[in-house]
């Protein structure tokens, strides 16, 4: 029962926050709702006994990524969106409807599917016995997923270099004038 209540609380918060993220006019507000979203998710993870993931969710996601967002928002000093209405054309409204209906159908289809009954050895008890979630995740990460883990370091390095390359102040030429005229 507790679990249901926890889920209900977090799920409704997540739903509200998610909606607010995309609906709020101000990017700062969106970012704050995103943080809320991430915290609630972390709560859900914790309720599923995925402690390690819950922790890095808070540390990395909320603590680093969203902060980065906030930082950029502040840096750019963006005000709220000036548009009164969403500027959408008729086909775009069609797509909007189609997307919503599509995902309703997807949700329905997912509900129709039942768990396949595949179970692995790492049930909650097994994990507890083995030394807890973080320990086991670590073991999996450094045995089975050693290779991608090492590569992830390359990925981060790449991202750093890429960010430097991109954000480096450089004279940007106008490019192809003829092409601009075409556009």
């Amino acid at each position, binding site marked *: 029962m507790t679990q249901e209540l926890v889920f209900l609380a977090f799920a409704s918060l997540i739903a509200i926050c998610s909606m607010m993220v*995309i609906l709020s006019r101000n990017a700062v507000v969106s970012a704050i709702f995103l943080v809320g979203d991430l915290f609630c998710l972390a709560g859900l993870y914790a309720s599923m006994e995925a402690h390690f993931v819950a922790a*890095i969710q808070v540390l990395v996601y909320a603590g680093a990524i969203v902060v980065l967002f906030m930082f950029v928002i502040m840096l*750019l000093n963006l005000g709220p969106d000036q548009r009164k209405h969403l500027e959408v054309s008729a086909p775009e409204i069609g797509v909007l409807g189609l997307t919503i209906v599509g*995902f309703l159908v997807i949700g329905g289809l997912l509900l129709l599917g039942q768990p396949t009954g595949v179970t692995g050895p790492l049930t909650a008890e097994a994990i507890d016995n083995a030394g807890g979630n973080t320990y086991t995740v670590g073991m999996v990460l450094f045995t089975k997923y050693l290779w991608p883990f090492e590569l992830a370091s390359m*990925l981060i390095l790449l991202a750093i270099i890429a960010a430097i390359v991109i*954000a480096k102040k450089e004279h940007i030429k106008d490019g192809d004038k003829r092409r601009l005229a075409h*556009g």
Partner: protein
Amino acid sequence: MVSIDHYLVLATFMFLCGTLGVLFRRNLLMVLMSIELMLNAVNLVFVSGSRLLGNLDGQVMVFFIITVAACEAGVGLAMVIALFRRYGTVDTNFLRVLRG
């Protein structure tokens, strides 16, 4: 008992929100945040799946997804800054040169 279905539906809803954000928000920062939302929906599926299935691959995957999300956010925000430097705005409507 909270079943996997609940998590899936919640994830789908988040994913939908993220999708709509990508499709309809003209602010590039909002678009990036929406993508984060989508990735989080995926994470939710993975974690709930991991619990359901009794293996930890899903949680490991979440770890990698968070890494990638961080990288993407870094690169994306760098692009936002570059864009802003050039146009003084982060509105995607200005990205209209390439077409046809």
